[in-house]
């Protein structure tokens, strides 16, 4: 109880103090506030994750009613993740913001928004009262919006931020509808009311309620087709904010879906199929679009859509397991989903942080203009490479472990499925495999073009690595990833409680239920360690064999051509050209080119842009239609104060008189009836 008050107090003090500090201290104060709050919330999170659920009730106010705070294993898992990413992000951000140190006011606002973002995230993971939850949700969105539009003098940034704000509010509308529906029926804002409500529903009521919440949270999480805000907002934000948004902010959507699965008692099989369908489409579509992006951060943003799809696959499999009463499938699915949530938070934030490093050094993240950075920025390149391998789901890193768990879930489900679901599983396997392969195509492109080869453009400034301290949090994340990759059993035993909660097994039933997978995981850990040993052995043998031999250096073999320039290298566009040709029908790819003609060709050019078909048809076209309809009412907004006052008066009259007229009408009809 006192800790909660300290938590709020730290947040408020931070917010109040920051404007009065000098630029350097602002960031440190923000980080300090977050560290203190992390310690407090981490204390509860560890308890929730290892022991029984912690719960107590705050008195609350007249509007909200009592505010129950419950931290169970699920909240605990997400709390730990949020805290870890926020600390690394805050630390990294201290250095990232160095380039903007003369914009003191903007930094104050940013630091304040950053603290509020953390506090609101932590509180929405802990409270179980719908009104307080919505307030925290709104705070989170708004502070994230302020963080995103840090460079608000750029029009594109502001536009992306507003796009995010609007789409997030569509999500809020969904959530409010859901929560209000429940509270009108039960008269309580406590989350437990949702359970009692869904138990009393016969027919598709509970399913409909779940869908309301699902769509709401899916907008936040970035499931296709609700993802269109994501590829705009992530590139616009500063790198540490992009990392945090992609790492933990969109995961609140996943948390929401999992929380609702715990609360709503509906037909889990149907829910499972719905989630799986959304997920596999998200996964494939996300990575397919990621491949054709030339903006490094936009590429990563589309990859978040893909990874949300993979997490969704895990959740869907878990639901199917719940629906069919198969504990093994359910545990595997949920374990895969939760582990991938953590894994994605780690490698995606690392990727965003390293791309921020690239931006700091080169002042651009347009892939086509970069190249050969590995020689100037070896640490950044190394970290990016680790994260790229991990995100492609390749051992020995963490991405493989969660994808492996999800695969095992799928193959387990295969053994006990009926004909229709067998074909569905087949599609899912196909989807997951293609996602993996496409991710590899995408990240070999991103890493190869940005870091390898020769520089494609001469920069007028020096391109160099950031300070050592900036790398500390990045290496910390990388270390964590390697640990999960090498010793997955340790992390899976931590996962036991939240998975048990989701599968409805409060005890430690997970152990016997998935003993097979657990032994598989320890063998994987052996296999992966073995791989390291083999690689190191080969490496040392090679080193020993080469110790006395000549290792001359020469130019790259140009097939006889002796004067190759950096512009002869393969570009990102050419690397994925055959892929684009194959998928012309799905992608929206525009090319502008002027062909080279004649013996003495004049200047020519080539330009290509990729756009999102879902965005075109679901956002752009309807918005354009609404705009062209509303254009007819433009005369109302004429800029004269008198008419605006008139509108206000008309509105008030309307509010007062329409019910009166309605009452009169009602009386009149009553009168007629009596006649």
């Amino acid at each position, binding site marked *: 109880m006192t800790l909660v008050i300290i938590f709020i107090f730290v947040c408020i003090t931070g917010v109040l103090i920051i404007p009065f500090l000098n630029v350097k201290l602002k960031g440190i104060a923000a980080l300090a506030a977050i560290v203190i709050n992390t310690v407090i919330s981490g204390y509860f999170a560890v308890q929730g994750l290892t022991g029984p659920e912690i719960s107590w009730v705050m008195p609350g106010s007249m509007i909200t009613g009592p505010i129950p705070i419950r931290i169970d294993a699920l909240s605990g898992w997400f709390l730990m993740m949020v805290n870890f990413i926020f600390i690394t992000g805050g630390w990294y951000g201290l250095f990232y913001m160095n380039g903007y140190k003369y914009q003191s006011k903007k930094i104050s606002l940013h630091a304040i928004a950053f603290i509020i973002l953390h506090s609101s995230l932590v509180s929405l993971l802990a409270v179980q009262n719908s009104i307080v939850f919505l307030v925290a949700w709104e705070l989170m969105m708004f502070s994230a919006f302020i963080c995103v539009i840090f460079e608000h003098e750029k029009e594109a940034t502001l536009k992306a931020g507003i796009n995010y704000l609007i789409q997030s509010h569509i999500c809020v509308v969904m959530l409010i509808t859901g929560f209000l529906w429940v509270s009108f029926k039960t008269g309580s804002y406590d989350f437990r009311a949702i359970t009692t409500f869904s138990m009393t529903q016969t027919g598709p009521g509970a399913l409909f309620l779940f869908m309301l919440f699902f769509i709401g949270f899916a907008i936040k999480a970035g499931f296709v087709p609700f993802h269109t805000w994501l590829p705009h907002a992530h590139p616009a934000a500063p790198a540490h904010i992009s990392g945090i948004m992609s790492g933990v902010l969109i995961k609140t959507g996943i948390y929401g879906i999992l929380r609702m699965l715990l609360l709503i008692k509906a037909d889990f099989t149907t829910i499972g199929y719905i989630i799986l369908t959304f997920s596999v489409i998200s996964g494939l579509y996300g990575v397919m679009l990621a491949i054709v992006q030339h903006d490094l951060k936009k590429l990563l943003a589309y990859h978040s859509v893909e990874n949300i799809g993979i997490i969704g696959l895990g959740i869907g499999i878990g639901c199917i397991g719940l629906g069919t009463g198969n504990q093994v499938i359910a545990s595997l699915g949920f374990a895969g989903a939760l582990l991938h949530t953590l894994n994605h938070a780690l490698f995606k934030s690392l990727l965003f942080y390293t791309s921020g490093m690239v931006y700091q050094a080169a002042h651009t993240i347009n892939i086509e203009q970069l190249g050969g950075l590995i020689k100037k920025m070896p640490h950044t390149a190394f970290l990016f490479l680790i994260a790229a391998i991990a995100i492609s789901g390749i051992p020995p890193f963490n991405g493989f472990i969660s994808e492996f768990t999800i695969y095992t879930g799928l193959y387990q489900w295969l053994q006990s499925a009926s004909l229709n679901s067998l074909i569905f599983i087949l599609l899912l396997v196909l989807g997951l495999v293609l996602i993996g392969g496409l991710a590899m*195509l995408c990240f070999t492109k991103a890493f190869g073009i940005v870091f390898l*080869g020769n520089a494609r453009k001469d920069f007028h400034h020096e391109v160099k690595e950031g300070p050592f301290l900036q790398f500390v949090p990045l290496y910390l994340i990388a270390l964590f990833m390697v640990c999960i990759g090498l010793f997955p059993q340790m992390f899976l035993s931590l996962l036991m409680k939240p998975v048990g909660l989701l599968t409805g097994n409060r005890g430690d039933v997970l152990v016997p239920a998935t003993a097979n997978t657990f032994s598989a995981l320890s063998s994987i850990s052996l296999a992966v360690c*073995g791989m390291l040993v083999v690689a190191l052995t080969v490496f040392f043998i090679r080193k020993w064999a080469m110790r006395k031999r000549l290792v001359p250096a020469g130019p790259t073999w140009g097939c006889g051509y002796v004067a190759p320039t950096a512009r002869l290298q393969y570009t990102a566009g050419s690397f994925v050209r055959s892929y684009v040709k194959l998928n012309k029908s799905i992608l929206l790819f525009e090319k502008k080119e002027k062909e080279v003609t004649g013996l003495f060709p004049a200047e020519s050019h080539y330009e290509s842009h990729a756009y999102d078909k879902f965005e075109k048809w679901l956002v752009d076209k309807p918005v354009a239609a609404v705009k062209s309809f509303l254009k007819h009412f433009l005369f109302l907004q004429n800029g004269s104060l008198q008419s605006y006052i008139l509108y206000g008066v008309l509105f008030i009259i309307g509010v007062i008189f329409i019910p009166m007229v309605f009452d009169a009408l009602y009386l009149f009809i009553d009168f007629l009836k009596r006649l």
Partner: protein
Amino acid sequence: MLSVILILSAALFFTGVINRTKSILTGRKGPGVLQPVKDIIRLFKKGVVYSTTTSFIFQAAPTIYFSSVIMAMLVVPFGQSKGLISFQGDFIFFAYVLALGKFFSIISAMDTGSSFEGMGASREALYSMFAEPAFFILMGSMALLTGQTSFQEIFADLHLGSPISYALAMLAAFVVGMVMMIENSRMPIDDPKTHLELTMIHEVMILDNSGFDLGLILSAGLIKFAIYGALIVNLFIGMFPYEYTIPMFFAIQVMAAVITGGIESFMARFRMSHNAQFIFALTSVSLLIFFGVLMLLGKFI
């Protein structure tokens, strides 16, 4: 352990047999069966030339590629005896560990800054992506048929089922064989003996590798061939006693090599632009196996 020894010994002659078949069919005298191994031993004794454009990626990649193939080899079982590493879902590990090697060979090609090698890298990334679903659906159908999820148990149970399962094994052998061609950049997809860099896939990616590193890459190629050959063998031998299965192993490996050589002697490489479709079409053969399994299990009514 047995599988490792067998695969390594098959690797010694596999490529040699292919070359020998080709030379006989085209009426040349041709090199001996062990020539590829001798070439590799010679390479291992040489120094290395590195391009000034390259970084540590280029130097580390051959090592990692080689170790990934070795790890994949350790997973493959032989009849009754398990691979050195065997667990539930080990075929997923098999495919993904090979992907690690591929990832590194692709980025090491890009590390040279050569447009030719970039081209090879792009093709390799695309084609290997399309080949993967066929393998996973194949293993999925086998898992469904046998109710097991590890290589050794799947292959053992396949043998215990009805004789019709051997018909499926034939189809599966075709799929694995084609995946072998794609993974090793062989004929219908890629021509190892082509003379123009523009038409290569794998060969162009390793243009800049030399000496010890090239030796690692080439020996990994030999082992990879034998690994896929061993998978094909496993589809048929089941739980037979060793005195039959070991000769069968070598017979099937030699047969696979001879067929590969035959294909290469009589066929031309596909057009590069049709490769992707062709590889993805393999998935439909896998689907055929899947539906075959459904029929066997009586799920189709």
